[in-house]
Structures are given as structure tokens and as C-alpha cells.
């Protein structure tokens, strides 16, 4: 029947489905490679992957590289965010500035950063700096655009009300513009954090001697499919963990927003 009164979703059932599908996939993969339907040289094997990751954890090898990647991601993310907020704020405040630099911003943002990475490595070396710059170049624009829109889109009545209530320029920024922009910045936070991690890994992948990107690229150069896939799996786990954390943070900071249902 075509009634739209949806039955409440049973989450237990959905979780079961997910787990079942994953298990089936892994099983198929394992069997296919064992029976030599597919060559494990190209696609590795779940059990081998598991041993590899366990090995990395036991020796602490993976933590060293994960730490490097996280360091680049976090430093780049923080700097990119601060820069993006600052520039977004200035542009929203001085409209002339926005008009003058608008084409430049659009042009810069249109540049594919992945292609720029080798240049960054050339300019800033194989170490941390080039990755941080790479991350900044990605995060900055996401944060910049959301800050800019957040402040431009702030409710005019709210600004007028604040002025009538006696707000000076500082009050206006602190109590009206920033909170309003924050919602936009938070809305794009998960995107920008994702970009930050991609930036760091791509930077490492293209030229580095440590970090997750390096681990993957090294395995690749050895034609070691297990190494590549295991590296990717570790990265995936890191991304999921960060994403969960951000969801919590978002819930914490948008307490005043009605929950979208």
C-alpha cells in the first residue's frame, strides 16, 4: 500500500544487515583469493590484511606515521581555519575588499591543489611545512567561504536590534556576527576536516619520508597491495573516529538550534 506513514526504522535490524553484508563481502574476498579465482597479489586477502595491521600496531610502526599525519592535519587545519575566519571576517566587513579580491579568490579556489602539491614540496621541502601549507590551501577556502556567507547572511533585524540595544562594534562581533558565522563554520567543519586529512595524505604521498601517505606510496612502489590496502584501512578508521568526534562537537555547539527532523 502506498501510505506514507513510515514504519519506524528498526536500528537493530539495520545493524544486523550491515554486519551481515560486511561479513559476506569479507568471506567472498577470502574464499576468492584462496581458491585463486582472483590473484591475492593484486587484491591481497582479509586475513593477511588483518595480520599486517596487527603487526603494525604491535611494533608501533603505524602510530609513528599516523602521528605525523595527524600533526600535519591538525596544524594545517587550525591555521587554515584561523586564516579563513579572519579573511572572511575582513571581507564581510569591508565590502570593497571583497569586490577587489573576489576574482582572485575564485581563481585560487579553482586551482586543483593536488596538482600544486609538487610545487609546495619544491618550495617548502619534504618535511612538515609543505604538508601544512597543502592542508591550509584546502581548509582555508572552505572556512573562508562559510565565514563570509555566515556574516553576510546574518539577520539584518538582529544586527539592528543589537545596535538599538546599545551594542558597540566589538559587541556586535562578539555577540552577533561570530555566533552567526559559527553555525556556518560548523556546518562546513566536517568537510574542512576531511579536506585537511586528504591534503596531508596527498602531500605525503607525493613526497615525504614519513606519514600515512608515505606508507601507502612506499608499499605501492614495492607492488605490495597488502601494504596499500592496510594503509587505506587505517586511514579510514582514523577518518571515522574523527567524524564521530566532530558529530559530538557539533551537537555540543548547536545546542540552540532546533533539531532538524
Amino acid at each position, binding site marked *: 500500500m502506498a501510505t506514507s506513514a513510515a514504519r519506524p526504522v528498526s536500528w537493530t535490524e539495520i545493524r544486523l544487515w550491515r554486519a551481515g553484508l560486511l561479513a559476506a563481502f569479507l568471506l567472498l574476498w577470502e574464499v576468492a583469493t584462496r581458491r585463486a579465482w582472483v590473484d591475492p597479489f593484486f587484491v591481497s586477502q582479509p586475513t593477511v590484511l588483518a595480520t599486517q595491521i596487527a603487526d603494525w600496531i604491535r611494533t608501533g610502526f603505524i602510530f609513528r606515521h599516523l602521528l605525523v599525519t595527524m600533526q600535519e592535519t591538525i596544524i594545517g587545519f587550525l591555521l587554515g581555519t584561523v586564516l579563513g575566519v579572519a579573511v572572511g571576517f575582513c571581507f564581510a566587513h569591508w565590502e570593497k575588499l571583497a569586490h577587489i579580491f573576489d576574482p582572485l579568490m575564485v581563481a585560487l579556489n579553482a586551482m586543483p591543489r593536488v596538482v600544486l602539491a609538487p610545487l609546495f614540496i619544491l618550495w617548502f621541502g619534504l618535511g612538515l611545512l609543505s604538508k601544512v601549507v597543502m592542508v591550509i590551501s584546502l581548509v582555508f577556502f572552505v572556512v573562508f567561504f562559510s565565514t563570509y556567507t555566515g556574516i553576510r547572511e546574518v539577520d539584518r533585524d538582529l544586527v539592528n*536590534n543589537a545596535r538599538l540595544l*546599545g551594542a558597540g562594534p566589538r559587541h556586535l562581533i562578539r555577540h552577533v556576527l561570530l555566533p552567526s558565522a559559527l553555525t556556518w563554520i560548523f556546518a562546513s567543519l566536517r568537510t574542512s576536516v576531511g579536506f585537511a586529512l586528504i591534503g596531508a595524505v596527498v602531500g605525503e604521498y607525493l613526497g615525504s619520508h614519513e606519514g600515512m601517505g608515505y606508507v601507502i606510496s612506499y608499499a605501492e612502489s614495492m607492488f605490495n597491495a597488502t601494504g596499500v590496502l592496510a594503509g587505506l584501512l587505517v586511514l579510514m578508521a582514523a577518518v571515522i573516529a574523527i567524524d564521530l568526534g566532530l558529530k559530538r562537537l557539533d551537537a555540543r555547539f548547536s545546542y*540552540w538550534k532546533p533539531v532538524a527532523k
Partner: protein
Amino acid sequence: MPTGAIVLEQVTHRFSLPRENREFTAVERVSFDVRGGEFVSIVGPSGCGKSTLLALVAGLVPVSEGRISLDGRPVAGVDPRLGFVFQRDALFPWKTVAQNVGLPLLFRGVAAEVARPRVADWIARIGLRGFERYHPHQLSGGMRKRVALAMTMVYEPEIVLMDEPFGALDVQTRNLMENDLLEIWSQFRRTVVFVTHDLEEAIALSDRIVVMTASPGRVKSIYTISLPRPRSVTEIRFHPDFGRLYETIWKDLKDEVRLGYERSQTGLLD
């Protein structure tokens, strides 16, 4: 002699419409004055420039011609002696009820020890004790209006401008809030300029009513409402003079409302 007198002399405001390369006259040669402590309502058809007129008095929008003065001083920019209750309630969604009400005191540099009891007093007065830590989205429309009212009254402005503050409320809540407003007003005796669509509301609340013409808004006529005070908005409707006043003013207003409506219809066809 209470302060808070407003004088408008030949006030005109034109909005520039840069895309159409022309100007639009929203209010034209409006003159009237409001005595300190007086309750004056402005009625007129939708789009006749009532909100614009309030924005001009508040200094949010500059006058194109003419002058407005508050207690003899010409309006130049936003004046902190003024309070404004917006047509759409302009609460700060990221602040709690108590923070919203206390915000003007914070902006004005009132010490926290002084501000706290005043905020608590106003929250009690608007009947929202126990809701101090709620955020605006957790309140009903009527409660939000109350908060907006408290936020304006907490710093005791000499002049309160209100732009259809109760327009979006149901009749019962609206009557309650109108009575609250009258009570607060008779206690504090601030000048109130009250914009409304609703002629009954205007008669029930005001000392005088300014009727505006359809756009561009001009003053069509001014009526003095000498119904006895203190009033209760629900009971004053049964006063023998009420119906007579209503009829007289409505006759005046009706033509403008029709004109305004017809113009907005042709406007849609352009």
C-alpha cells in the same frame, strides 16, 4: 513633564532602487508629534511605510527630506534612549532567555550585580520564571514576544517603538499581552509609538491614532481617543464610544486599504 517627545516635520524617505535606476518614495511629507509619555498608534494599509517610518525615528534609516527630533534634538543615527520591538521578533537564538533580557544591560556596561536582579524582575514580570535557561526556539511565539518586550523594557528607554508586536499571535494571547503592555506603560509612562494593522487594537491601546494613506505613506488624519483609563482591552470594546470611534476611523482607513490593495494587485501584473 516627561521626556521622550518626538517631532516629525515634513519627513520624506525615498529608497533607491539601483537595479531599476529609480527611486521609490515610501513615506512622503509626514508631520506629526508625539508628546512625552503618550501612546500613539499608526495604522495604514500594508506597504504604506509604517515600518519605514519607525526605522526613520529609530535612526536605522536616514531621512531623505525633513527632520525628526527627539526631545528637540535631531535624530542622527541609532539613539540609545530608544527601544524597538520588531515586527519579527529579533531574539538572539544562541542566547538563553535570561541572556537575551540581560543583553542590553551588558551592552550598556551595567555591572552584573545590578543587572541580575533587574533581569530577574523582568522575567518574573513577563511570567517566564523558570524559563531563564531556555533558548528562543524552545519557546512559543507568545513567549518570544514577551522576551522581546522585556529585552526592550529592561533598560527603560524613554521612547518605545513597536512594529506590529502582536501581529502573529492568537487573539487570546494577544489580548493578554495588550493588557500587559498597557499595565507596563501606565507604570512607566514611556512614550510609545505602536504600529498595527488592527484598528480595534489601536483604539483600545492609544491616546491618539495616526491614519496613513496608501503608498507613498502620508498622514491622512489624526484622531484623539479619549476613552477612560485605565483600560482593559477586552472590556473597552464595550464602551459606548468605542463603536462610534471605530466607524469613523474605519471609514477613513477603508479607502486607503482598498487603494493599497488595488495597487499591489496591479503591481503584480507589471
